[in-house]
């Protein structure tokens, strides 16, 4: 059995070597390590934190934000083994085929490959996130049949789609990769897990074409100074999350003065998250209460945990220039006098009995359009390890809200056509949209993939353009984003990278 090593216990100046260094012990780093466990290559997994939350370590994430109000940079992610799966909600949904496509009305969109490239990896990703059998839209309607009736939505641009959820154990949160897979990592003979090990610089060879070594530092403790180590790897995978991947590349600027992979000024740009505006609409069901799977997670007969959501169809998105969105029922609401008048007047006019009607608020996870000016840059501020802190220039365009609004209008139209209900749109101004805004804390896009170095930091395999032995894993690779929660998808993408690395390392 291999062991987890606390880097703080190693003598300063310790020099380690390995075939593959994985920087970051979040879902991408752990999925990659597990995929390569038991192979002949010597792998070192470097995690900045330990096994549990430590506010001193967490503070390394602090930074600044400007523009549209956004979560503090140290609030939406966690810096210990398992990364942000230590606080995720377990929402899973595979990205749609259209999410991968270049959409001519959506500048900068499109992956360098289609969903087919990830299909072989979804089943294993689903197993790693412990979301049960693969059901989603393929048979969500059948699976949910005994829980209640679905809202009938006749032909139109919106359909009922399905989330699945990472396994919950009683009141325990969904699968937290660190705690869940720590023993598996320790059991792998070819794997060393180095905790409390902060990579502070990626050192390139003088010609800039490959990584020579990694500088690693530990935080000082009372009575014990911080340690400085080095790692000499054959290959490196950067898997620190959508913000920290960019930070480490930008800060490693001794050879490539603008930062590694940043020869075309792309690192840190195109940052995105999934905005989650609450109470965006009021949905009325004429027939009475909605089935329980609309408003809360339901355990199905085969153990899958599922919840219904309203999504725009690909044909509607294309025809109406709409981005991805997943609208979910939040909670029952009472209608005001105008709302009651709207329901009574409409139902009577259409010859519908709405005497048992019920109203619900709708929330939504939105997809943002790619925007190069929504970006992370380094500041002059330094953290406790001397690393420059980040600044995020956040922005949501009015067009992002307008695109989602078109989907809501279509849902309202379909409810009326289907004689199933009606819809009120509750947001009429930018201030309305922002008033109840949450964020998915899905950090996306800052080291985007592209076959062309002028439009991507990495190639389609996640290898940094121009650097032979440096790959990137995680949602920072996503060139466009989808409304689907990223964890399942980034794990699938990482498993694809693992297959690629098997060839590279051999």
């Amino acid at each position, binding site marked *: 059995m291999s062991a987890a090593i606390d880097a703080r216990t190693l003598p300063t100046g310790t020099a380690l070597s390995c075939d593959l260094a994985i920087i970051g012990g979040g879902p991408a780093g752990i999925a990659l390590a597990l995929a390569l466990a038991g192979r002949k290559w010597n792998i070192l997994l470097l995690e900045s934190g330990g096994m549990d939350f430590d506010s001193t370590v967490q503070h390394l994430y602090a930074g600044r934000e400007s523009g549209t109000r956004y979560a503090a940079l140290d609030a939406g992610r966690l810096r210990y083994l398992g990364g942000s799966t230590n606080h995720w909600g377990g929402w899973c949904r595979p990205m749609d085929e259209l999410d991968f496509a270049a959409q001519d009305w959506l500048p900068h969109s499109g992956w360098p490959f289609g969903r087919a490239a990830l299909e072989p990896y979804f089943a294993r990703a689903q197993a790693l996130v412990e979301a049960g059998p693969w059901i989603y839209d393929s048979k969500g309607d059948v699976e949910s049949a005994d829980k209640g009736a679905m809202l009938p939505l006749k032909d139109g641009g919106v359909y009922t789609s399905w989330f699945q959820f990472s396994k919950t154990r009683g009141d325990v949160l969904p699968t937290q990769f660190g705690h869940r897979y720590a023993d598996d990592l320790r059991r792998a003979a070819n794997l060393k897990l180095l905790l409390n090990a902060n990579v502070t610089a990626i050192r390139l060879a003088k010609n800039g074409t490959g990584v020579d070594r990694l500088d690693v530092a530990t935080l000082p403790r009372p009575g014990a100074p911080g340690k400085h180590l080095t790692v000499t790897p054959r290959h490196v995978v950067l898997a620190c999350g959508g913000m920290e991947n960019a930070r480490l590349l930008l800060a490693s600027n001794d050879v490539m003065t603008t930062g590694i992979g940043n020869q075309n000024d792309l690192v840190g740009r195109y940052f995105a998250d999934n905005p989650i505006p609450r109470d965006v609409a009021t949905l009325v069901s004429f027939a009475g209460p909605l089935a329980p799977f609309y408003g809360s997670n339901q355990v199905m007969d085969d153990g899958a945990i599922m919840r219904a959501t309203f999504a725009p169809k690909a044909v509607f998105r294309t025809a109406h220039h709409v981005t991805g969105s997943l609208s979910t029922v939040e909670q029952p609401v009472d209608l005001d006098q105008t709302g009651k008048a709207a329901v009574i007047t409409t139902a009577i006019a259409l010859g519908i009995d709405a005497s048992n009607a019920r109203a619900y608020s709708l929330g939504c996870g939105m997809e943002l359009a790619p925007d190069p000016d929504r970006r992370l840059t380094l500041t002059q501020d330094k953290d406790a390890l001397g690393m420059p802190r980040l600044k995020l220039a956040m922005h949501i365009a009015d067009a992002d809200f307008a695109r989602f609004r078109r989907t809501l209008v279509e849902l309202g139209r379909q409810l009326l056509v289907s004689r199933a209900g009606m819809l009120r749109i*509750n947001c009429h101004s930018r201030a309305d949209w922002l008033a109840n805004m949450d964020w998915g804390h899905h950090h996306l896009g800052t080291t985007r993939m592209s076959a062309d170095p002028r439009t991507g930091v990495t190639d389609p395999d996640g290898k940094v353009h121009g650097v032979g032995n440096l790959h990137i894993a995680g949602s920072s690779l996503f060139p466009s984003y989808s409304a689907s929660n990223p964890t399942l998808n980034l794990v699938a993408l990482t498993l694809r990278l693992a297959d690629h690395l098997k060839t590279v390392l051999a």
Partner: protein
Amino acid sequence: MRRRSLLAGVAAAGAAVAAGLYRFTDLIVKHYPPTPYDDVLARLVDREEAARLGAHVTDAGAPRLLAARLRKTLAGGLRPALEAETRAGRLVEVDGWLLPQSLALLAALAART
């Protein structure tokens, strides 16, 4: 013979009371002051609720023009017109509620009379 007459009398009195309730009270059906647009507004079962909704329609225009437009669009019946508009996506927002266009205009007319 007297019993039959009595029953007929009771029935006639009942019918008269019912007719009175229908005509002179709102117990059976709501009554509204006469307007030049009653032929259009008659398509609304509950004009008060419609008026409450229609008060939020801000750009419906003058009632006379509104009624003339509705006479045309609703000539084939209210429900078929609304269903056709909904299928075609001719919806408007009234206080945020997505409604078939003619229903919003009808509610607006109710609010303006």
